[in-house]
């Protein structure tokens, strides 16, 4: 029976088989919306981590996601990037690309880059090598084996190194960097991969006030050319960069709007005051 339904699905004439589609199928943003998340549900052993979540991200905007610990922010990013399968719902990249059908690697190739909550850089390799690995390039086996850095690629890496302030550490092992520098390196890895959409989970954790300020500048400068979604607990930081803020609570959207709107929203006040120590 399942075999039959699989076959039926395979034979549907209104869609092309996934392997025949060019992976970088052009992203259709005619409606000015880059990411459509609709009715997303996900439960871990009965616990609803995502609960009928609806979220639309406009093309080129900088969106902040806030919410208490365990609200489902990281889980949402896991679903978008293909790390976790959702139970039901849909995630579309542009109007046509159904992200739920793609693997992590495909999604990265489509142009969605991610910075993890816990900085994950390749500690045994140099800062430069970390950036080279992240470079936007053909990631298949043979091209990677024969890859040589072109002068323009080296310039690109050098520019990013300057942007993230690690020029002097270029040949240092990434494992020897400070926590804040690792965060920056990971942001740098996002930059060299030139993604369309950046998902950034808690970028300023462990950064000094000055580093935080520079991160804020960098992220605001990225918006427009890229679309940026930032998860952060540091309210001052959020206030300094945010145009639109979305508050997540228990796996669904509680409020959305400008920072002032959100902060004065009765539901938000109730939830935050209820949880405040």
């Amino acid at each position, binding site marked *: 029976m399942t075999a039959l339904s699989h076959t039926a699905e395979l034979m549907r004439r209104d869609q092309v088989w996934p392997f025949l589609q060019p992976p970088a199928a052009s992203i259709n943003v005619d409606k000015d919306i880059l990411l459509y998340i609709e009715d997303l549900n996900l439960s871990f052993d009965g616990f609803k981590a995502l609960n009928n979540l609806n979220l639309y991200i406009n093309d080129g905007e900088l969106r902040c996601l806030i919410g208490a610990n365990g609200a489902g922010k990281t889980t949402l990013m896991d679903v978008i990037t293909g790390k976790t399968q959702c139970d039901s719902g849909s995630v579309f990249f542009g109007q046509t690309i159904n992200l739920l059908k793609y693997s992590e690697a495909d999604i*990265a190739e489509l142009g969605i880059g991610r910075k993890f909550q816990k900085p994950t850089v*390749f500690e045994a*390799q140099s800062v*430069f090598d970390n950036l080279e*690995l992240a470079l936007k390039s053909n990631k298949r086996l043979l091209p990677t*084996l024969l890859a040589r850095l072109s002068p323009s690629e*080296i310039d690109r890496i050098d520019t990013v190194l300057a942007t993230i302030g690690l020029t002097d550490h*270029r040949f240092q092992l990434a494992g020897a960097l400070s926590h804040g520098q690792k965060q920056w390196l990971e942001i740098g890895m996002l930059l060299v991969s030139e993604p369309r959409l950046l998902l950034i989970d808690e970028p300023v954790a462990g950064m000094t006030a000055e580093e935080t300020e520079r991160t804020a500048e960098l992220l605001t400068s990225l918006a427009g050319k890229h679309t940026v979604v930032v998860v952060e607990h540091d309210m001052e930081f959020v206030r300094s960069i945010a145009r639109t803020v979305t508050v997540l609570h228990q796996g669904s959207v509680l409020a959305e709007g400008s920072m002032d709107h959100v902060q004065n929203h009765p539901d938000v006040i109730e939830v935050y005051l209820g949880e405040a120590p």
Partner: protein
Amino acid sequence: MSLLTTFMSRRNSLGSPVLPFVTILMTLTVLAAIGNLWIPADSALHVSTYTITLLGKYLSFAMLALAVDIVWGYCGILSLGHGAFFALGGYAMGMYLMRQIGSRGVYGDPILPDFMVFLDWDVLPWYWLGMDQFWFAMLMVLLVPGLLAFVFGWLAFHSRVTGVYLSIITQALTYALMLAFFRNEMGFGGNNGLTDFKDLLGFSLQADTTRVALLLCTAGLLAAIFMFSHWVLKSRFGKVIEAIRDGEPRVRFLGYRTDRYKVALFVYSAMIAGIAGALYVPQVGIINPGEFAPLNSIEIVVWVAVGGRGTLYGAVIGALLVNYAKTRFTALMPDGWLFMLGALFVLVTLFLPKGLAGVYGQLITSWKRGRNRDEPPQRNQEATS
């Protein structure tokens, strides 16, 4: 600026080990060859044929260790089944050598090897066809281990089996093959395996010149594989492989299909193990199912651990030293070797987590640091400005 960057990013902190490695390996081998063929037997510098064969055997083990280091040291895939790929390569070579015997066997059958006549078989099984051709047999030396590694790797890496589970199923793989090859009906000589070889490409295997030629071949191929592997692992492909070792999920989010990278590396490594097996068999004169024994595969891992993971030359040194110790030790106390091996593994894990290569690396680094203290580190500043 960019030239410097390219140069520096390819730079290895210990300098490239390729040239010293190849030079030392080839010099020693050529000296041994001269010592055997041209220095009279009564001279102190004469190298006996026994030693030549022993060296050839050690070098094929070194190649096998290299294969394990490529997957374990660089990609974190702890294979406890590489003995299987080695044995399969060995069997492919053994089948060719069997068919070279022709009618010189005990039963004098021009086609069938002795053990098949003994089993009352009257036709050659299909999988023995073509094995009388050297080129075909050599193709099988690469293809059979490669194909097995491909199927196995694809299944395992595609379903994201890693760590201890992977190690256990590689053990199961080699164990299953051992049981299969022990059966007479398989057509590989049962528990006696394949032996009584006469000649290779028309050269008698008993002749000193053939022995020396086999040693030179082994050393030459080891050097070539070392150079090629070094190139592969220093390329961007190699950087991806190391990144997979240190954080596979992260590599996926960069857009690399990590399972394909692992399968490719696993197949490459299995083929090297196959070549090592094919070189081993004519030198020791026998291949039997004992080579599939799970313990053999574990021993290889100990060689690599002793020599040091992730350097290539460390694996070679480990294989040579441990096997030399084994030869010496089993002559004194035949039953004690397993205890020695176990003790060696525990000691290395506790006190030399990076193996002998790691000790060497530390010495070099501290020596360089001592030297840099005398002269101010100008070059560093040039490099970063």
